[in-house]
């Protein structure tokens, strides 16, 4: 089951022009997404991680044509036919959206404050030309699935808590029974005690409805928990792609290592951070030459700033964009602890 592709992204690029001056001349491009390719198989969850500005949200928006991709193909294998989302017509997009929906990050701004829950959830159905009464029936069917009682249907968003609002967003995405759901940071705006409820709900729904997820988040421990495979992005480029095991336990890109090392461990008896990355993400308007990570990489050599590495297959579906992926030893011990040993607690 895990080997039938449902979504194939091939060489996807999105460059936003930067315009200056009175004549709005284009002075450069922000390469938000640069030649990104990955495949999502049926029934799996692919996590997309990276820091702000790495292009993960732009990828999500391209997948649904909420922004127009500049290059590349996005093949969606539907039940009857295959669509190329990047070049689909308006009419085809209607079919695409029945197969693929999105859950947004912020449940406070993604719901119209003047709409009742039932109207919010019915909107995709109305867009799909489903009749009003049929739509109302399907809304009442979907609400219990996301853990909301029927009495929520007539409420307004301001009457709901953050977790309830996010359940409404999930209901809105699932009401057209799409096989594929893109979730853009679905839990990062929620309270800690509610976050685990929503993660459990997403896991439940996935097995009940046989869903496929593209899960975008910056919280690595959550991505690790929910994903089968993980793609790591840096400055618009995919730098590492592999199974959760490969990315977390056997990572080969120094950036992935740095990301993993900056995850804080919720255990006061483990207070050492082995590898704290210096500096900040450079401007995507002027990414460093060669390997984009070379300016922050502790292993950078001359070749790294001269020549951009390709995404290379390390075997077993593990892809890494680094000249020295085979040679680098990214095991814990080689980094000197930089986080000073802390005084014992009183």
């Amino acid at each position, binding site marked *: 089951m895990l080997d039938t592709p449902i979504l194939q992204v091939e060489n996807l690029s999105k460059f936003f022009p930067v315009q200056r001056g009175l004549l709005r001349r284009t002075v450069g491009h922000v390469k938000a997404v640069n030649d990104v390719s990955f495949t999502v198989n049926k029934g799996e969850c692919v996590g997309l991680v990276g820091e*702000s500005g790495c292009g993960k949200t732009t990828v999500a928006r391209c997948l649904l044509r909420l922004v127009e991709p500049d290059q590349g193909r996005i093949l969606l294998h539907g039940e009857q036919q295959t669509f190329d989302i990047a070049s689909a017509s308006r009419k085809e997009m209607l079919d695409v959206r029945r197969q693929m929906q999105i859950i947004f990050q912020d449940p406070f701004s993604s719901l119209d404050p003047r709409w009742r829950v039932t109207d919010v959830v019915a909107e995709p159905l109305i867009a799909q030309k489903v009749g009003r009464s049929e739509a109302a029936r399907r809304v009442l069917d979907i609400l219990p699935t996301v853990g909301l009682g029927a009495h929520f249907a007539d409420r307004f968003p301001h009457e709901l808590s953050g977790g309830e609002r996010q359940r409404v967003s999930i209901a809105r995405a699932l009401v057209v029974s799409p096989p594929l759901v893109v979730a853009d940071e679905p839990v990062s705006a929620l309270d800690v*005690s*509610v976050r685990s409820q929503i993660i459990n709900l997403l896991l439940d729904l996935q097995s009940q409805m046989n869903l496929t997820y593209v899960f975008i988040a910056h919280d690595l*421990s959550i991505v690790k928990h929910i994903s089968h495979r993980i793609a790591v992005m840096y400055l618009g480029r995919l730098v590492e792609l592999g199974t959760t095991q490969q990315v977390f336990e056997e990572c080969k890109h120094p950036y992935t290592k740095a990301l993993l090392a900056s995850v804080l*461990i919720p255990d*006061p008896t483990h207070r050492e951070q082995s590898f704290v990355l210096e500096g900040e993400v450079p401007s995507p308007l002027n990414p460093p030459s060669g390997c984009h990570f070379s300016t922050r990489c502790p292993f950078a050599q001359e070749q790294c700033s001269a020549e951009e590495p390709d995404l290379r297959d390390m075997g077993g579906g593990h892809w890494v964009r680094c000249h020295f992926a085979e040679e680098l030893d990214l095991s814990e011990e080689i980094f000197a602890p930089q986080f000073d040993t802390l005084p014992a607690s*009183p």
Partner: protein
Amino acid sequence: MPDSQPILEVLDLHVHFKMLAGVVRAVDGVDFTVERGRCLGIVGESGCGKSVTARSILRLLPSSETTGQILYHPNGSDQPIDLVSLDAKGDAIRAIRGKDIAMIFQEPMTSLTPVYTIGEQIMESIRQHQDLSEEEARDLAISMLNKVGIPDAERRLGDYPHQMSGGMRQRVMIAIALCCEPRVLIADEPTTALDVTIQAQILRLIRSLQQDLDMSVIMITHDLAVIAQLADFVIVMYLGQMAEKAPVVELFQDPKHPYTQALLRSIVRPDTPPREQLHSISGSVPDPRNAPSGCRFRNRCPSVHDRCVEDPPVVEFGPQHTATCWLYVDD
């Protein structure tokens, strides 16, 4: 005994806001002590009163009704000052605010004014509290920016906040907070708006400055991992009340309050089996205006009992470990 020297004592603090819809008891009976050179962590979810507690220390909530005591022990004086009794707009609190006790806010995007350069903003704080010439203040500002890890500090003084990234702005905030060498630094969710690699840098910076300057830190966060990494002593808050108070290792290894236990179980740890259901707390945090009577956690608590409608007692588990819960009291 320089090790356990109290610098700030908060005793039975209540902060209430009068609203049209009723009184919001944002903070309801909080006690803690901040010791010299130590980090106190205050953890809780939205609406638990952690930020209100922090702001009331600096008297930044003039429209609230604050009762209780906040005793500040100034350097070289035996006589503590009760900050609650000071005029919130008077000179006495102004001399302490920003000089002895400084604060970093959550949002580095909105807590700097966009119309002044960062140099002007740092120097304003310096010259408010120290009798320095403009030249000297400028030199101090440059050295502070260097200390917080801003490269090319001299040129950066002329930058406006919009020319800097979020991590850089948070460093500027820290530089402003630290330029008068405060004895207490209050950090209200200092890394929530930042990326993980930058969060690691900022927390490392706060920790090393704390050690270098022998400064006390009050770290306010919703993130238990930040608490685990930085705090020496922790207060867990829920809807304005203290649920549990304990040294950090004890809190993580032997939590007593059902809320603390549930919070600790609900977070994803490195050893959590992948794709398994997480423990979760049912329901969500109620509106503080309709907080339940008695124990405020009772309608979400897995061990709820008839007695919980009455105010729960404070139960001691060790010299510094207490939980406010009926669970440990026999009938």
